[in-house]
C-alpha cells in the first residue's frame, strides 16, 4: 500500500582522504546496529572493514577527510562521478579539519620543517573541505561524527525521510541536559554558542569549554563571541586560537582567526587571509 518498501539495498561506499580514520570507525562503533545495518545496506567499498572493493557506482558514498594532495583531488572527482548521493562525514571533510590550519602558513616552510626530503612529499598548498571541489549532498559534522547522528542518517536513508540533524547551538542541547554554563559560571571560554550541536554538549558536561568540533552553526556570530573572550581577559591571538581547531577553516571561524590571530606558524597579529587553491578542476 505504501510505496517503496521493497527497493533493492542501497549500495554504500566509504572513502577516505586526509583524516584520522575516526569517523569511519564510528560506523564500526555502531556495535548494536552494525549487523542489522549491513543486512539492509550493501557496503560495497569500505577498505577499513572489508577486503571487497568497488569503485562504484554508489547510491551513497560517505567521504571522510580533507582534500590535501593531488591524488585526493583526482579521487574526489572520480567518487563524485560514481555517487548518486555524496555525504561528507566529519570535520576534515566538511570543514578541512585540523590540517586546514596550515592554510594560513607558508606551505613550503611547513613541509620542510617536518620532512627531511620535502621534495618527495606531494601535497597541495592547502587542505580544504570536499565542498570546495565537488557538490556535496549532505554532511555529518563532528570530530568525530556522532554515532547517534550516523544511525539517524542511516535510518532516514532506509525509511526515505530527511535525517533529523538539528543545526542549533550546542547551548540548546547543553541547557536541555541541565548543564550549567561554564562560560558564565566559571569564566571558561566556550565555543558552544556558535557551534552546531550533535555531540550532546559533551565538553561542558566535562567541566570544560566546547572546542567547536562540530563547526559553526547556522549564522554563527563568531566575531561577537571572540570579542567576549577578549573582554574576559584573553589576548586576541589566544581568543583566535580557540577557534583555530578542527573546524577553524569554516568561514565564520576562519574570519575570526584572520582578524584576531592564532593560526599556527603565523606570528600573532600578522595573520593574513588563508591561502586558497581556488577550484582547479571544474569547481563545485
Amino acid at each position, binding site marked *: 500500500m505504501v510505496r517503496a518498501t521493497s527497493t533493492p539495498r542501497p549500495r554504500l561506499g566509504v572513502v577516505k582522504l586526509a583524516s584520522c580514520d575516526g569517523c569511519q570507525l564510528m560506523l564500526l562503533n555502531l556495535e548494536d546496529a552494525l549487523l542489522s545495518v549491513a543486512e539492509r545496506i550493501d557496503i560495497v567499498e569500505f577498505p577499513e572493514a572489508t577486503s571487497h572493493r568497488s569503485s562504484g557506482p554508489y547510491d551513497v558514498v560517505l567521504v571522510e577527510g580533507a582534500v590535501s594532495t593531488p591524488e585526493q583531488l583526482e579521487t574526489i572527482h572520480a567518487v563524485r562521478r560514481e555517487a548518486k548521493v555524496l555525504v561528507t562525514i566529519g570535520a576534515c571533510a566538511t570543514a578541512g579539519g585540523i590540517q586546514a590550519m596550515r592554510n594560513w602558513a607558508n606551505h613550503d616552510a611547513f613541509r620542510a620543517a617536518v620532512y627531511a626530503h620535502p621534495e618527495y612529499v606531494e601535497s597541495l598548498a592547502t587542505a580544504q573541505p570536499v565542498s570546495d571541489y565537488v557538490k556535496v549532498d549532505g554532511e555529518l559534522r563532528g570530530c568525530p561524527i556522532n554515532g547517534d547522528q550516523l544511525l539517524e542518517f542511516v535510518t532516514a536513508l532506509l525509511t526515505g525521510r530527511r535525517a533529523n540533524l538539528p543545526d542549533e547551538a550546542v*547551548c540548546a542541547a547543553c541547557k536541555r541536559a541541565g548543564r550549567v*554554563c561554564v562560560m558564565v*559560571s566559571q569564566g571558561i571560554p566556550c565555543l558552544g554558542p556558535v557551534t552546531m550541536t550533535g555531540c550532546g554538549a559533551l565538553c561542558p558536561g566535562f567541566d570544560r569549554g566546547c572546542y567547536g568540533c562540530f563547526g559553526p552553526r547556522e549564522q554563527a556570530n563568531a566575531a*561577537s563571541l571572540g570579542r567576549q573572550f577578549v573582554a574576559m581577559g584573553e589576548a586576541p591571538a589566544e581568543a583566535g586560537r580557540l577557534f583555530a581547531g578542527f573546524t577553524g577553516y569554516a568561514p565564520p571561524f576562519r574570519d575570526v582567526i584572520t582578524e584576531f590571530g592564532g593560526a599556527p606558524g603565523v606570528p600573532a597579529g600578522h595573520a593574513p587571509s588563508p591561502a586558497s587553491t581556488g577550484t582547479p578542476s571544474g569547481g563545485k
Partner: protein
Amino acid sequence: MTSSAVTTVIAEPRSGTGFLPRAEFQHLIDLLAEDGRTVIGPTVSDGAIVYGEVRAVTDLPVGVGAEQSPGRYRLVDHHDARYFAYAVGPTSWKRFVFPPTLELAQSHRDEQGHVSFGPVRHEIPKMAFLGVRACELAALGIEDRVLLGGPYTDEDFRRRRDNALIVAVQCAEPGGTCFCTSMGTGPGVRGGHDVLLVELADGFLVSSGSEEGAAIVARLGLADATADQVVEGSDQLVAARDRIGDPVVTAGLHDRLLAKLDSPRWAEIAERCLACTNCTAACPTCFCTSVSQRSDLDGHTAVTERRWDFCFTKGFSAVALGGNFRPRVQDRYRQWLTHKFATWIDQFGTSGCVGCGRCITWCPVGIDVREELNLIAPPPVLGTEAQAAAARAPRTSVFHVDAVRPETHDTVTLTLSTPDGMDWSRLHGEFVMVSAPAIGSIPISISRRLPTGMELTVRAVGPASTFVTGLERGAEVGLSAPLGHGWPVEAAHDHDVVIVGGGMGFPPLRPVVDEILAHRASFGDVHVYHGARTPGDLLYKEELAAWASRGDLEVGVTVDRADATWLGRVGVVTQLFDHARWDGTKAIAFVCGPERMIQATVSTLAARGITQDRIFISMERHMECGVGLCGHCQMGPFFVCKDGPVFSLAQLGDVFGREGI
C-alpha cells in the same frame, strides 16, 4: 525605588506563624519524603546553585550564595549557616513540570500499511519543590495560563503541576540581575504556595498557603513565632525590595515597545546576540517546543518526542522549501523581546516576564533586557483574566485513503474517511495535521468536507508531503483534529463574495465555494479567481469549468506563464479583477496564497472598495503542534495555528506584511 504600579498584597507571615529552629530543618525534609515525595531543591553543583534532589540538609547550599551580573555568575561563601541566601540560579522549575524532552506518542506502521498511534502516559512522581521564590511562583502561574488556559491543554504539564507541593522561601538575597519589583512579581510571595518559609538567622518562620500545606505545618508541631521574629522577617523583605529598586519602567511598556518594531536598536543587538538560546532556555516561562520522530531502521515503529525549542534558531521559523519568516537574528531577538513583554499580554492577559534576571545572567555576552527595554521603549498593567476552558488534547485518528486523484504532476487530492463514523463535515477547523510514523507531521488544509471525512490536496515538496502524496488507495494515515479557525463563510451571507486563490492557496478555499453553492441563495454575486504558475499547475480544472457553466458565479482563471498552446489568460491573479465591474463596497473577500500574492491582492481589493474588516486571508507559518502549544507559528500576538490561519486584515493590523515577524 519601589514605585511599581501594582499594589501588592504580600503574604507575610502573621502572628500564629510557627517557628522552625534551624537544627530541626531536616524534620521538614523527612516529612515531605515520608509522604512519598521526591524533594527537589537547591544544591551546589558544577559551580552554581541548581535544583536537584535533596535528601538531607547537607545537600542544601549551606552558607553559599552567588554574585550575578550580566553574563557572569560566581558562587560566594557567606560564612554563615543560611540555606537559602542566594538569588535564583540557572535551573527553573519549568524543568520539572515541563521536561526538556518528553516522549509523546508511539506510532506503528506494518508491512500492509496499517498505522496505529498511541499516546504515552508517563508515571509522574509525587514531588515537593523546596525553595520556590516569588518570581518563580509567578512563572508557574504564567505557565498555567499558557499551557492550561486555552482550548487545548498540556495534560502532562497539568499532572506534573498537580503532583508538586510547593514550599516557597521568601527572598532575602536578591541578585544583581533581579527586577521582579518592576514586573510586579516579587520579592514577596503573594500566593500559589502550599508552605511559606522565611529564613531567619537561627531558624524559619513557617506558614501555609493551602490546606495541604496547613496539614504539613500542623505535623511539624511548631511553637508560635515571636513578634520580633516576624519583624525580622518583614525587615528582610523590605531590604530585599530596596536592593532591587525598580530598574525597568513598565508603565505603558506594551504600547511603547510595539511602537518600536522598526527601531535601529534591533540590528545593534544582533551584532552582539549569539542567538545561542541560553536566555530562552533559562527563562522560566518560555514554553516553545518541537517534535521529532525516532524510528527503527525499517521505519515501522516510531516514537514522537517533544523537546524544548527556541525561537532564536533559524529552523524554528522555517517553512517548506527553504522559506523563513524570521531569517535574521534581529528578527528573532525582536520576536522574543516583544513577545515576552508585549504580545504575551495580548495573548494570555499577563506579561511573559517575571523579572527573575536569568536571561541577563546566563547570556554569554551579557545582553541586559533591562537596559534594552529602557533603550528601545517601556510597560504594563497586568491583565488578570483567567481563561477557563475545557481540557482538550489533540487526538490522532487513523484515516483510510479511499481515493487518490492526481491534480498536477506534483499534486494530488486524497479522499480520506474515518472508520469511527464521526460526521467530520460538522466539525469546524481549517486544517489537519497529517502524521506519518517515522516521517513526521505536516499541516494540510482541508480542501473539501465530506460527511465521512474530507479531501486533502497536497503538493509534494518535502519528505513528509512526498510521503503523503505517495499514499495509495487503501493506505492508512494519522490525522489530528480539524484544527484552527476557518473561513467565516456565514459572515458573507447577503454579501457579494470574492474568492482569490493563488497556487496551493486555492485548495483551502474550495470548501468555501462548496458552502456557497450549497446555500447559493444566501449570497449575492460570487466571483472565484484562481491563479497558477502554468496551465499545468491549475487545480480542479473540471470543477472550475463546471462552476463557470452554472451561470450563477463568475470564474476567472489565469496563469503566470504559458506556451503558445494555452488560449486562456496570462498575467497575475489581480489582473482578473482590477478592471472588474463589480462593486466592492458590498463584498466580502477570502484570499489565500503566498504572502506576497496576498499583499498584491488585498491592495487591489482595497482599491475596489473592500474594507480591511471584510478581507479575510490565510497565513502560512511554521506549524509544529497545530494547537498553540509549541510556539513556532507565533506572529505578533497570534498563534497562526490556533488563532488562525484565517484572519481578517483588520485583525492583523500592521503585523501583516511586516518583515521578519
